[in-house]
């Protein structure tokens, strides 16, 4: 389908029009520091003007709309004949402004939640969600290492992809559903000069990203394999709080815990799912009190192995998209680029 051009001045009206039919979620300002630094989150909007398409990165990725941090899976009652009723989120949702890295992460989560056991709650949300991507010309900040992970360009996984070409967005249409969405916007055909501007954007983008890990990340699975007993894990583990922040903000982490919550009548309740973290003390604890990863260093190593080796082996792509959220949120300042660099260098 041929691309269209959407003037920036008409973007807010487009998002507002979508909000009449869908739950529209997109980047918004969460907090502004005294020094002027801004922190963004994805959140629902009814007025498209609230969207901050100039955002760099959000605290949590759009994953929270597919695998919420907390969700109710079912409601049950044990009075008489026990009954359980599944709780499904069937809202039609449009995610606006997802960056390529977060779109890659969604691709991975789709694989995870549709392989073997098909997760009905994830899939229900995912099938009802449309994604309007927003391309980026430069890394979010100095913490990003998306170029190393090869996620700063995406070819699929979105319905529309917008590129900033100055006064307007160049909108690629990837799906029919995306085309139907765009029908709600006042767009025009893309002319030669629009294509040229989009080309110029791509050239700027090529110059805007630099690799930060000295080794090609395609070798990371083997490098990690060799590093299993490296003292580097022990050294970094000493600094680690095992607080789980890295996992909880990660766009590709998908571990969760399920608990039943009783109502005060003690005969009915809900089954709740909450995202979990392999860094936490009790994560690998089992009945009898045994824990398979008792040491902070082994839990930390496990996370890096998941990100750059195990998930690659299971699903064909790395479990890390290089967004850097883990590093930004690490109080101990444990840094992925430094860790991979040290591991590669310590062989």
């Amino acid at each position, binding site marked *: 389908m041929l691309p269209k051009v959407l003037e920036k001045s008409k973007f807010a009206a487009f998002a507002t029009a979508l909000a009449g039919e869908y739950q529209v979620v997109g980047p918004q300002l*969460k*907090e502004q*520091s005294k020094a002027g630094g801004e*922190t963004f*989150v994805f959140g629902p909007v009814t007025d498209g003007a609230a969207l901050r398409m100039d955002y760099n990165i959000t*605290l*949590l990725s759009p994953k*929270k709309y597919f695998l919420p*941090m*907390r969700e109710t899976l079912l409601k049950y009652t044990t009075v008489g004949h026990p009954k359980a009723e599944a709780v499904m989120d069937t809202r039609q949702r449009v995610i606006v402004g997802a960056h390529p890295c977060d779109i890659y992460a969604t691709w991975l989560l789709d694989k995870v939640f549709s392989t073997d056991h098909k997760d009905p709650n994830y899939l229900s949300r995912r099938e009802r969600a449309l994604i309007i991507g927003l391309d980026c010309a430069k890394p979010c900040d100095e913490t990003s290492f998306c170029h190393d992970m090869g996620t700063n360009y995406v070819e699929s996984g979105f319905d529309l992809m917008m590129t900033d070409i100055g006064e307007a967005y160049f909108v690629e249409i990837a799906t029919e559903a995306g085309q139907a969405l765009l029908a709600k916007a006042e767009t025009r055909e893309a002319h030669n000069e629009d294509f040229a501007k989009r080309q110029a954007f791509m050239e700027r983008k090529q110059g805007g990203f630099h690799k930060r890990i000295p080794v090609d990340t395609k070798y990371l699975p083997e490098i990690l394999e060799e590093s299993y007993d490296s003292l580097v894990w022990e050294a970094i583990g*000493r*600094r*680690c*709080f*095992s*607080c*789980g*922040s890295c996992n*909880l*903000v990660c766009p590709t982490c998908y571990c969760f815990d399920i*608990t039943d*919550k*009783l*109502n*005060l*009548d*003690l005969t009915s309740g809900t089954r709740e799912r*909450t*995202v979990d*973290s392999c860094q*936490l*003390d*009790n994560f690998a604890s089992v009945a009898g009190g045994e824990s398979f990863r008792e040491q*902070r260093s082994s839990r930390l190593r496990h996370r890096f192995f998941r990100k750059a080796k195990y998930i690659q082996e299971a699903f064909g792509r790395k479990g890390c998209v290089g967004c850097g959220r883990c590093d*930004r*949120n690490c*109080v*101990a300042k444990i840094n992925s680029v430094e860790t991979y660099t040290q591991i590669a260098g310590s062989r």
Partner: protein
Amino acid sequence: MSAKPKLAFFSFASCEGCQLQVINCEDELVALLGAVEIVNFREAIDERRDDYDIAFVEGSITRPEDEHEVKEIRERAKILVAFGACATIGGINAIKNFQPQEKVSQYVYGDQAATFPSYPARPVHDLVKVDLKLHGCPISKSEFLEACKCLLAGKQFTVPNYPVCVTCKLAENVCLYQKGMTCLGVVTRAGCDPMCPTFGNKCIGCRGLIDHPNVNAAFDVLEDLGLTLEEVTKDFTMFDGCHKEITEKK
């Protein structure tokens, strides 16, 4: 246990604010009273009976006469719940543990100090077996209600063994460290639905340390941010003075 389990609340060295939190469960009180009978609750009712099944014990143990009383409660109760920071970790009262006891007594009681003997504050589990700890200063209402439901249903109530950071991430809070502040949330047990960080205040550790906290890393991080060892220790001894990880640091 009979059809309607009997609950009792007791307090030792504390402000009774945790008991007040029970009364604050306004929306759920009617349902709670439908499920239990409260037989001893100085904060709210006149009745005082000793035929309780579950005893909620608030406060730290800091006087010789407390010992006898808490042991008696333990003997009577089928289940004993340490209720609030003073009871679970010594809490604020343990600040005095780091000062000369005579000086502390004189500061509070003046020339009557000898009439009110007291010693360093101890959490309830130092004296008697505790079946469940509900942490916090004050306790969390929702955690109290969850624990009640579990106790009544004979289901295990799991006290979180993860730090406040987890719940801050669930709430999508901006990390206070990113705002140039400090926070004890990295080693402090969660369960507070992180009220303090959510409203821009640092976690002061009222729920005590998680199991196996990386206290060394916390001291390193806080000192890197310009706090002196004395300041960091002061932060940690506000509530966590009875934790061996902190006393060893002292």
